[in-house]
């Protein structure tokens, strides 16, 4: 199987993307939305053509609103983010913007902090739950690679799946003003779920072959398992990618960014289940062999 033959190349490609993601994270940071830092967001629509974004920006700044961010939404509206507003200030902001309000959200800073903690906790919890589950599912497999190493390979693949979309988001944030909201966390966790499912399907095949073809060299066995599950992995991911893209293109504006993050996550998630997790298993087996010699 070419994946195993060129495993160093494929692992390097992963490492390369992870490095780029980390660099853009460090360079641009992750812009937090009001979900996490607190604040107000007003969405307005204009009956005719909307005014230029600079016009709105200046009008809002002149009226004395702090920490504002104006972003286009849909074809005829803007989303204006500010520090937390009182109801009177909200009414003033609507007047200043010159449009009509379609939605208004205001989140206190304590709510934001709470959500941030919950988001981090749920990501950690998901990771722990997955390692435990994989270690349990593969508990009877111990030769030539012990069962917890399957868990380790899965975790490395999952870190890769989280870091890359997050890095992409840092880029989106820097160049397009995207912000991390609750849905971003949901997209990450869903990516984890789908990617782990993919990886498990490949590992399941390895588990099956280990029972029947105990004498086959491990690298070859993993290669065979990969080529047998290859079409399935690609097809499933393609199908999910199709619906996610359809959600991104035709779906509601609120879930558009969510769908884009999910699409990026799906892509790299599929990559990691084929080109990263299983090659890693082979690498671990080979280094173990060297040690034993």
């Amino acid at each position: 199987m070419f994946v195993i033959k060129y495993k160093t190349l494929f692992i390097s490609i992963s490492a390369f993307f992870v490095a780029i993601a980390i660099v853009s994270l460090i360079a641009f940071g992750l812009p937090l939305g009001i979900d996490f830092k607190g604040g107000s967001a007003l969405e307005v629509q204009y009956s005719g053509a909307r005014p230029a974004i600079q016009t709105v920006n200046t009008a809002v700044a002149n009226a004395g609103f702090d920490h504002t961010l104006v972003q286009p939404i849909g074809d005829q509206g803007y989303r204006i983010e500010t520090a937390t507003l009182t109801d009177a200030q909200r009414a003033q902001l609507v007047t200043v913007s010159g449009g009509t309000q379609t939605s208004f959200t205001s989140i206190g800073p304590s709510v934001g902090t709470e959500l941030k903690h919950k988001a981090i906790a749920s990501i950690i919890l998901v990771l722990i739950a997955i390692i435990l589950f994989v270690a349990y599912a593969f508990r009877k497999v111990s030769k030539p690679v012990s069962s917890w190493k399957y868990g380790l390979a899965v975790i490395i693949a999952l870190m890769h799946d989280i870091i890359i979309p997050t890095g992409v988001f840092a880029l989106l944030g820097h160049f397009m003003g995207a912000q991390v909201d609750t849905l971003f966390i949901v997209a990450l966790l869903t990516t984890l779920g789908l990617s782990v499912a993919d990886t498990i399907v490949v590992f399941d095949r390895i588990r099956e072959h280990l029972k029947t073809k105990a004498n086959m060299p491990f690298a070859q066995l993993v290669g065979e398992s990969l080529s047998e599950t290859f079409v399935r992995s690609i097809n499933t991911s393609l199908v999910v990618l199709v619906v996610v893209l359809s959600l991104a293109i035709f779906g509601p504006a609120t879930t558009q960014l969510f769908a884009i993050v999910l699409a990026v996550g799906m892509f790299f998630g599929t990559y990691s289940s084929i080109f990263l997790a299983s090659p890693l298993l082979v690498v671990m087996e080979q280094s173990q062999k060297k040690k034993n010699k």
Partner: protein
Amino acid sequence: MLKKRITAIVVLLVGIALGWMVFRSQEANPPHFLARYPFRLGLDLSGGSHLIYEADVSQIPASQIDNSMASVRDVIERRVNAFGVSEPVVQVQNGGFGAVNTHQLSIELPGVTDITKAEEQIGQTPFLEFKVQSDKPMAPQNIVIGPDGKASTNIDVSNQFVSTGLNGKYLKQAQLVFAQGTNEPTVSLQFDSEGTKLFAQITKDNIGKVVAIYLDGQVISAPVVRDAITNGTAVISGSFTPEQARELVSSLNSGALPVPIHLISTETVGATLGSQAVHAGEMAAIIGFIIVGLFLLAWYRLPGLVAVIALALYVVITLALYKLIPVTLSAAGIAGFIISIGMAVDANILIFERAREERIRGRAIGEALSAGFQRAWTSIRDANISSIIIALILYFFGSSLIKGFALTFGLGVLISLLSAITITRLFLQALPTPKGNKSFIFSSGFTTKK
């Protein structure tokens, strides 16, 4: 074989009937008899307001918190109902994380887009509390002498009075009474039986001392207790105008809060934005379904067609469940549903790919298919368990937005397991299979060789 075919036809007919019901129950004009099962749309899709208040429970004992929060909910619910919102949802929820535990009240007002009015109405809910003089000496105060030689009068007396536990929760009724002789308007409070006992105890213990009546955190009356009061009546004489007294009475009568609350987050969505989102969601689901269907047909041919039918049944069953449970659909929930359409096919793809391998090894088509179902099961099971774990964690950890997604996503994984395995197997078994192991309509991919 005949039995399988009859069952398959029955399943198909039930599916069509279910689809018809889902479709017809959306008819509003004129209302269909099934219209009492509409999709329940979340505020972000139907338009409306969502307010979250945080209660300050620092002054009441921990054992009283749940009780007091329930009373806060009842009081606010009565207020909200009074301004004629259809189906408001007022819920107590726990916020905070780890050691920090906060108590919140979530208020959903469908159809209300003018949040100012709602905020005002809720904000007017009085917070009534009775306090007594503290035994502790007053904390030392820093008195600053200003440059003009005058001492600042900024003296903190708040710790001079301590909570008694008697608060708005125990209020039964308030009444406007004009005092005899002076004709001054006063507000007479009648406690419920528990409050009467509490008040009797408090007055008994504090004869000769001051019992302060606090309204919204301010002392409005601080009479000296002369005798124990056992009839459960207290009088607030706070130099009101008759108008002020009347307002206070009506406000108190619609309920007083046992703890102060303050607004921490609001969300208002206009109805047009919501309906746009619903249409966009429908569009994305339909287009996603069509492309997935075409792909299955092109790649897996006859079994692909069966998978498409199973997928359609999955969609119909899921939508019917959304109506019957009912599941409140938000934009995130719809996204969860759309993604589940893609994931629902996964089990079928696993089975068909496995069957293809068995066929390549020389098994007859029928045999290969049953082996496919059997052997693909462990990976289908393990792959789905991980998705279910994620849905569960999201559901229990998340805010209402995430819960909506977790619910439709998790439900989708469970139902699709059923539809992709049981229904597909039933239909495939009902179909006649060619004897050999080569057949165009049972092959997959772009070549006929394999």
